């Protein structure tokens, strides 16, 4: 009797293991794998278990688990990372009820959290996911001196907390005419922008000092605005400064130096005019989409700026950015493709939407390359990922197949 029971439970256990294996083990075979963690692997395989990458290498050199669900592709890359977007906040309908990327009631509102506005079921989230984006840095957009916070999240899941990686990633700011106040409200000039920003950072310094010096139980009452900026001052939250013109980028570097803060340059259309200064300041760049319209503040933008940043040795990533009209979002895969077509080396272009983006966002321990132990975020393609006529055939996030409709 005892023995029989034992045997039954043993059998039960075995079948459970088998069920688990089927549900959680995935093998991806590809003619070519761009791992972004080493050389390209031809005739490669990736073994995924429990949402993580367990093996990667040449098919002939791996021990592939028998009976596991197997997918095939011409090419596999790491899940794409959009280094700066507003999807989930700026909805596809472009009506007031779905535009939460910009609050215009004040020039500086660093206390606005991205997670309070993110709509996980927004159609553009589905759209970019179907085109390979597995992680994005999204949140408040350009348009105000300080528009609010950003966050980093996987592109899958119906709740904002699903796949959340950084509820507070950066604080978004903008310099130049794009962030002038509406209807004669300040700031109305570049000089006023900088004056307002400096004064606010100084207030935050004073607030920080009062908090540090306060005796226990006697701390000053909390100020959410200044509290958010204290994170910028103490280095825990980078200030993401959108600036297109050279003079505005110079102002951004000046602010960074004065307050000793970490900044990331966003947009940076005229970066090629001041490569040495950007490099010396050790500031990473999240470059405007390659196909961003070249007029207004971007009248001097170029398809080859990414190549110039690369040649100068400045860390950079590409982004989909913010669009006020059509297309309501860009797609980083296509932006990187144009950069590659205009001289950015192939794997560098791929890195700008995978591992290099992950490094700038500080998430490269988990995502951005295909390496053992990392999240199983993978994109499968029918051919060269950058080619116009290639399709994204499948997308995997945390080992789960999240898109199977070719795009």
């Amino acid at each position, binding site marked *: 009797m005892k023995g029989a029971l034992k045997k039954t439970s043993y059998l039960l256990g075995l079948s459970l293991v088998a069920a688990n294996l089927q549900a959680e083990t995935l093998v991806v075979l590809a003619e070519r794998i761009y791992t972004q963690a080493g050389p390209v692997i031809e005739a490669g395989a990736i073994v995924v278990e429990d949402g993580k990458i367990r093996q990667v290498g040449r098919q002939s050199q791996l021990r592939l688990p028998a009976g596991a669900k197997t997918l095939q592709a011409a090419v596999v890359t790491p899940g794409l990372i959009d280094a700066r977007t507003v999807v989930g906040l700026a909805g*596809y309908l472009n009506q007031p009820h779905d535009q939460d990327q910009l609050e215009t009631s004040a020039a500086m509102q660093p206390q606005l959290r991205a997670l309070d506005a993110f709509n996980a079921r927004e159609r553009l989230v589905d759209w970019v996911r179907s085109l390979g984006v597995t992680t994005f840095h999204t949140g408040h957009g350009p348009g105000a001196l300080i528009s609010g916070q950003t966050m980093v999240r996987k592109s899958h899941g119906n709740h904002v907390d699903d796949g959340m990686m950084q509820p507070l990633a950066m604080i978004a700011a903008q310099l130049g005419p794009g962030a002038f106040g509406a209807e004669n409200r300040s700031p109305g000039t570049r000089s006023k922008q900088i004056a307002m920003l400096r004064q606010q950072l100084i207030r935050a310094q004073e607030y920080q000092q009062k908090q540090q010096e306060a005796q226990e139980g006697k701390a000053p009452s909390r100020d959410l605005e200044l509290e958010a900026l204290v994170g910028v001052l103490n280095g825990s939250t980078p200030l993401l400064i959108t600036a297109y013109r050279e003079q505005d980028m110079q102002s951004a570097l000046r602010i960074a130096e004065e307050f000793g803060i970490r900044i990331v340059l966003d947009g940076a259309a005229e970066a090629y005019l001041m490569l040495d200064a950007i490099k010396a300041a050790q500031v990473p760049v999240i470059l405007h989409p390659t196909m961003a319209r070249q007029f207004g503040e971007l009248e001097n933008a170029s398809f080859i700026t990414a190549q110039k940043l690369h040649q100068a040795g400045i860390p950079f990533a590409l982004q989909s950015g913010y669009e006020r009209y059509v297309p309501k979002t860009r797609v980083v895969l296509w932006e990187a493709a144009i950069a590659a077509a205009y001289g950015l080396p192939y794997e560098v272009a791929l890195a700008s939407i995978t591992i290099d983006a992950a490094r700038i966002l500080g998430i490269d321990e988990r995502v951005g390359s295909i390496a053992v132990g990392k999240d199983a975020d993978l994109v499968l393609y029918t051919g060269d990922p*950058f080619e116009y006529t290639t399709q994204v055939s499948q997308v995997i996030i945390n080992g789960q197949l999240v898109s199977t409709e070719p795009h």
Partner: protein
Amino acid sequence: MRKIVVLLLSCLTASLHAQQGLQAFVGATLLPIDGPAIPNGTLLVQDGRISAIGANVPIPAAASIHRMDGKIIMPGLVDTHSHIGQVAGADSSAPIQPDVRALDSINSRHAGLMKAKAGGITTVNVMPGSGHLLSGQTNYLKLRNGSSVEALAIRTESGAMAGGIKMANGTNPLRASPFPGTRGKAAALMRAQLVAAKEYCDKKGSDSPPPRHIGHDALCEVFAGERIVHHHTHRHDDVLTVLRLADEFNFRVVLHHVSEGALVADAIAKAGVAASIIHIDSPGGKLEVMNLLPDNGKVLADAGVLLAYHTDDPITDSRLFLRSAAMGVRFGLDRDTALRSVTLNGAKMLDLQDRVGSLTVGKDADFIVLSGDPLSVYTRVEQTWVEGVKVFDLADPEQALFATGGYGAGRDQVASEVLQLEAAQ
């Protein structure tokens, strides 16, 4: 000193004559569009027109020879809908302004024209915007080297500048009075205008002609089939409204954008109306294009609709026009139709199919030299030729600036205003 000047001048004239003389482009793969590809073909150009094309064309001794080994040569691209050249039309005084001409606003030195040449566009329908039911007369231009609209204009047989007329329905022209507030009012205003114009046109040839009305005159050309209506329309029901008006007033129309065209593809095909569409990288951005899907081109073409793509520059960049066709292929369109959709099909929509759109003997020598497959992201437009004259050369750094962008490449202020106007509506 004077001698040198004279000498230089005569050299210049000589070289201009050579361009206008006999030229042979040899060694490239030719994509004629109206026939199969010709590997290692020869394209002969005489006085700005194609005089021969084929694999075994004898090259006359007098011809100046251009070696194009390893390149692809295809017809210059035809963009059926663009806002380059700081083009404007109607003002905000009325929703229907057929008297207004795009040609009176075109800046022929505008950077947008140079960028369009860099993108391989040789023929372009330059149009006013879509914020009116009728925003004015459009212009069909050749992107020649020229610094006036006269120098760029394509001429009809009578010598007039060729063009169409721009109409729009849907939300863009819905505004405060005197603009319509509803779709029903929009159609009623347009019908009233067309009825009035028709009566005017009918009386024009009579013994007691009415006083001249330049707006009605343009619509008389529409009724006569000489001026094609280029009609901005997105939603499926708005598309059907256009077809209904075209049927009632018997005018020739090309549908533009046609974002929900896939929903009424059979009706469009049955009406024998052409569709000039746009590729946008994501759905949405305005309510009318919430259902814009990238396989719109495939569905329309499969239904038998004559299909073209357009840039709507600045909505999409003229330098990336070939990309639109290639993205059509990504989402199911066949390659041949895709290539026609940026050349010959567009030419048909402008009544220019006898002059441009394919590498055919007797047609204008408008062609582009590509580094590779026209539908590949890696391919660059290396040269653009209009009527036997090179108008863009990527090898020239000054011109290459327009191909890539960079410091001084554009001050596209007015184009951005067009965009903002559309965005505001």
